[in-house]
């Protein structure tokens, strides 16, 4: 199986680190890149062409919902999910309307396993 490429978008370094750790424990060969806000994510995604993008919602500059909308158009075949502490129904509905996934924080091994499952199929 070809190694997958994942882009983690979160302004919190510790969140990016935990997400990366949970991915690489399962798949040491996967390419994992990081971005700290929406603008950086879009710029990186162009070259990276990730298979999965995980986005925090509340970030300085462009937030995760806006970035998800742009990435959805840019990368039609990519799996995109919000991974956020913002557990409000309004945020879930926005994710649904954009056709992207929604996963609540805190980041745990189980949640990351669920998020990467489509790439393992």
């Amino acid at each position: 199986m070809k190694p997958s490429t994942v882009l983690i978008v979160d302004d919190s370094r510790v969140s990016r680190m935990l997400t990366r750790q949970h991915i690489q424990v399962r798949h040491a060969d996967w390419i994992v890149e990081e971005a700290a806000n929406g603008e950086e994510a879009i710029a990186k995604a162009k070259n990276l062409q990730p298979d999965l993008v995980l986005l925090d919602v509340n970030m300085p500059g462009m937030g995760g919902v806006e970035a998800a909308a742009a990435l959805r158009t840019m990368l039609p075949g990519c799996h995109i999910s919000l991974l956020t502490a913002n557990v409000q129904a309004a945020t879930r509905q926005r994710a649904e309307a954009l056709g992207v996934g929604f996963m609540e924080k805190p980041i745990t091994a189980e949640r990351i396993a669920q998020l990467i499952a489509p790439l393992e199929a």
Partner: protein
Amino acid sequence: MIRLTELELDALVEVFNIGVGQAASAMSEIVNETVAMSVPSISFLPRAAAAKLLATKSTGSGRICGISQRYSGAFQTDAILMFPEEKSRQIVRLMVGESMPLEELSQMEQEAMSEIGNILLNSCVGALANIFERELNGSLPDYHVGYSEEMLSHSGDGASMVLMLHIEFVIERQQISGDVAFIMDMSALEDLKSHVNSYLARAMGGA
């Protein structure tokens, strides 16, 4: 002065209880430990007195590490999470695991505490927004280290009346306790009261 009926007050405590329950469950997932919570206490008092009261209620008399976020939308509130400063490294250690070297852990402490605050406060506020069927927009987390009196003094006029909801939670095995407080001014309380009433009407099948 806005008055809440006994039923409104009871509903308000119940709604915050659910919110803090969500936050405690998130905290328990972060640190992999059981987290216990107190029943919320509500006080109406001047902001300066709220700051003093928080200082007496919060654990110990030493410096604390506080993470605050301001929410607006359905109603406006300042939400604050506080831990004794000397416990913050222990909490971050529980979050990131034993394998991280101490030096790296210290560098990451402030960011990790901000993220814990962000997750806890948002899970609590998110539960409130969902119960009220409204939206609340939060600022990015603000991190302060200092004495608890100082945590409230950076926001607003000391003489203005506020409503303070205070909850204590305890990570029992690690003997760590923290405090969550929500501060609202009177106009926010008016908004909150109307949301509580709509919630009560829905809960009782009237809407």
